[in-house]
């Protein structure tokens, strides 16, 4: 049964690795469905991770860390929103600015405050989110296959993992079933239609951008306060960009976003597991090649297997009333 326990462990770690991707992917989904392209997901997660770790360290409370992460990420989202919506600036430039600012600020402030080369002090006890054991997990652990699957893959995660799944459900439901969702879908396709229907384009887009900020805040805080025990420089490591790829892969829809992020998380987990393993006929595969696997697969999958991914028509375009 060794392959089973290995499989379970890989799945378990796949879920953990998928969560920050999923938060960022949903953030991008809200933003881009409203017509605001957001390549600053990475930067927002990074500042949230730092703020989360710093606040959790200062207060000894993981929830305070989460709150701080969300607040700081949302503040950065509003900067992007102001540039992209109110000032009608170039959304790519603004997103790049957010990313660069995030890298610089977290390193600078981290070094100035803690003098540990940009790290925050390790978090312990209540300053970190602890895994939750779902009811009945221990009871059915003995049942073959289903037992370990439930006990180790489904159960035993921090609360943020379950919030990520809940966020997916909510996103799908709000977009499809509510007034706000309809308006948001419309504003990303044709803002003029929304404007002439008597609805504020700006209001919708700012709401979407703030939602993206909150979700990036969740993703960032997950990295530093739940997954790891503290902040490391550049700990987002491109997850914000992989999330953008996942967003395209999922064609800007919530459930496919969940599936895609799980797939990418799983690939990541497999690559970690394969490090140092001797593959028959090839020998030991270099670590770098294995680490590149998810990226290579992303390119291959995006290039060949999803058909045409058509973005919301107005995404990236500031809304200007025609004359």
């Amino acid at each position, binding site marked *: 049964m060794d392959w089973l326990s290995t499989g379970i462990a890989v799945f378990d770690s796949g879920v953990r690795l998928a969560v920050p991707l999923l938060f960022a992917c949903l953030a991008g989904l809200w933003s881009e469905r409203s017509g605001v392209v957001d390549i600053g997901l990475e930067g927002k997660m990074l500042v949230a991770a730092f703020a989360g770790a710093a606040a959790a360290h200062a207060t000894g409370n993981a929830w305070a860390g989460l709150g701080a992460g969300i607040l700081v990420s949302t503040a950065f989202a509003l900067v992007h929103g102001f540039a992209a919506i109110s000032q009608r600036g170039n959304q790519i430039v603004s997103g790049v600015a957010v990313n660069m600012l995030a890298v610089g600020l977290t390193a600078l402030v981290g070094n100035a405050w803690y003098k540990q080369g940009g790290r925050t002090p390790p978090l312990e006890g209540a300053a970190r989110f602890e895994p939750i054991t779902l009811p009945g997990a221990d009871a059915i652990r003995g049942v073959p296959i289903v037992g370990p699957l439930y006990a180790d893959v489904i159960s035993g995660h921090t609360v943020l993992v379950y919030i990520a799944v809940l966020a997916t459900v909510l996103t799908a439901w709000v977009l499809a*079933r*509510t*007034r*706000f*969702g*309809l*308006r948001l*879908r*419309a504003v990303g*396709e*044709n803002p*003029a*239609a*929304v*404007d*002439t*229907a*008597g*609805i504020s384009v700006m209001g919708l887009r700012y709401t979407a951008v703030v939602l993206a900020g909150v979700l990036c805040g969740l993703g960032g805080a997950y990295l530093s306060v739940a997954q790891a025990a503290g902040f490391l420089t550049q700990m987002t490591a491109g997850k914000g960009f992989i999330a953008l790829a996942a967003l395209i892969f999922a064609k800007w829809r919530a459930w496919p976003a969940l599936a895609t992020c799980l797939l990418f998380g799983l690939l990541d987990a497999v690559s970690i597991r394969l490090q140092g393993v001797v593959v028959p006929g090839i020998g030991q595969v270099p670590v770098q090649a294995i680490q590149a696997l998810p990226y290579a697969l992303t390119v291959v999958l995006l290039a060949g297997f999803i058909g045409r991914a058509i973005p919301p*028509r107005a995404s990236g375009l500031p809304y200007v*009333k025609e*004359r």
Partner: protein
Amino acid sequence: MTGRPPAIALAGIDKRFGEVHANKAVDLVVAAGSIHGIVGENGAGKSTLMSILYGFYEADAGEIRVAGRPVNIRAPREAIAAGIGMVHQHFMLVEPLTVLDNVMLGAEGGALLAGGARRLRAELDRLGRDYGLVIDPDAIVGDLPVGLQQRVEILKALVRGADILILDEPTAVLTPEEADALFRLLKILASEGKTVILITHKLREIMAVTDMVSVMRRGEMVATVPTSGTSPSQLAELMVGRRVLLRVDKAPASPGAVRLAAEGMTVRDGQGTPRVDNVSLSLRGGEIVGIAGIAGNGQSELLEALAGMRPLAAGRILVDGTPLAADELDPHKLRGRGLLHVPEDRLRMGLVPPFEACESAILGFQQEDRYGSGVIMDRAGVVADTAKKMEDYDVRPRAPLLKTAKFSGGNQQKLVLAREIERQPRVLLVGQPTRGVDIGAIEFIHRRLVALRDEGVAVLLVSVELEEIMALSDRIVVMCGGRITGERRPQDTDERDLGLLMAGVDERAEAA
């Protein structure tokens, strides 16, 4: 008409966009329950005025009264609340969404969609029965033909309970049949007490459906008259400010040899869909052949392929009887053989808007020796050359150094025509020569095209304006879905017949 106060009363509406004074103290009274036409040339301020009424722009000064009450309309939301609905020239629809979603947008009736959707389905059903505005609420708007998309726009306004319906150039995208159906609907709506404001530049429509007509010229409201007491020529005169000839006087054509012919020509777009499908036609010297059709039925692609701008998927093109080799199908080489082209979209293909007029006026001929030798351009010569073209073609203002974008549509078009015609074409391909061009310039351009024909030039005219096709052509070829659906001589046909051909129906062939 009735004892009701006027549906709309505008007083002293004034609006500037930077240096442009779009509306100058405009007054307008629209009687409740009437169909009121507003005519004027492009840039006369009609659309600006209606956008102010709809809250899309805010007036700098002036007062708006709706049904007698002064209202402050600063956003479309307030216009909708005041009972005003608008059908924009460029539809305000979200194409990937369904008809129901589009109608519901902004009128959802609650934070959740389910309840409002049920109510709106019933409402759409009722409107479908009452007015014949039948539509599938679950169809994706982007998949619908433009006629039905317009129906969605009208339904949007009606569902919101609009008492006053503004339609901006509603027939630009419709076949004559569809336009007639629209006018019948407007009359029904008016008979039920709704007020309709119709903005158009087609005087025939004004005469056919309106009760009153207002004329705008250069931002001013110059006249409001009962339709029964006016005539198209009087309206045209009011619009332009001088007498204009609406009819084109021309002698019968005396066609010579075939100068340009297409045989079994097929043109595919990027997706591989045939846009021009096995088309054969010929064009003789000394005749104008008009290509009629609803926009998007392959006329543009036909024109561009003949001009060497699109590759042929099948078939061949013959100039003066000799088939063109593949490498000769190139705009520059075709120009050298006397085949010149006035493209449909002058701002995208005919001119470079940020360039000075004199630079735009030599585009495509800039290599020629008369504009300089070697790599050095003779700037003074180019400016003088443009000044002469501007004089000959009455381009205003006569400013060769002004940026191309600063000229009005009509003057830009005259600049393109001057450039192409001045090279003494043997064949002239003309696309939408009067799109966005004011009446005064239309008259000039039409006379110029007829004069070219009389000099023996072969002219191919592609236009979505049926009146233009009827007035200028010696032969009319109708296209639908990339195919030629019929050919007529203008004296043997009428708008109804052509309209059916444009929809792909040939009654005469069926009767035969």
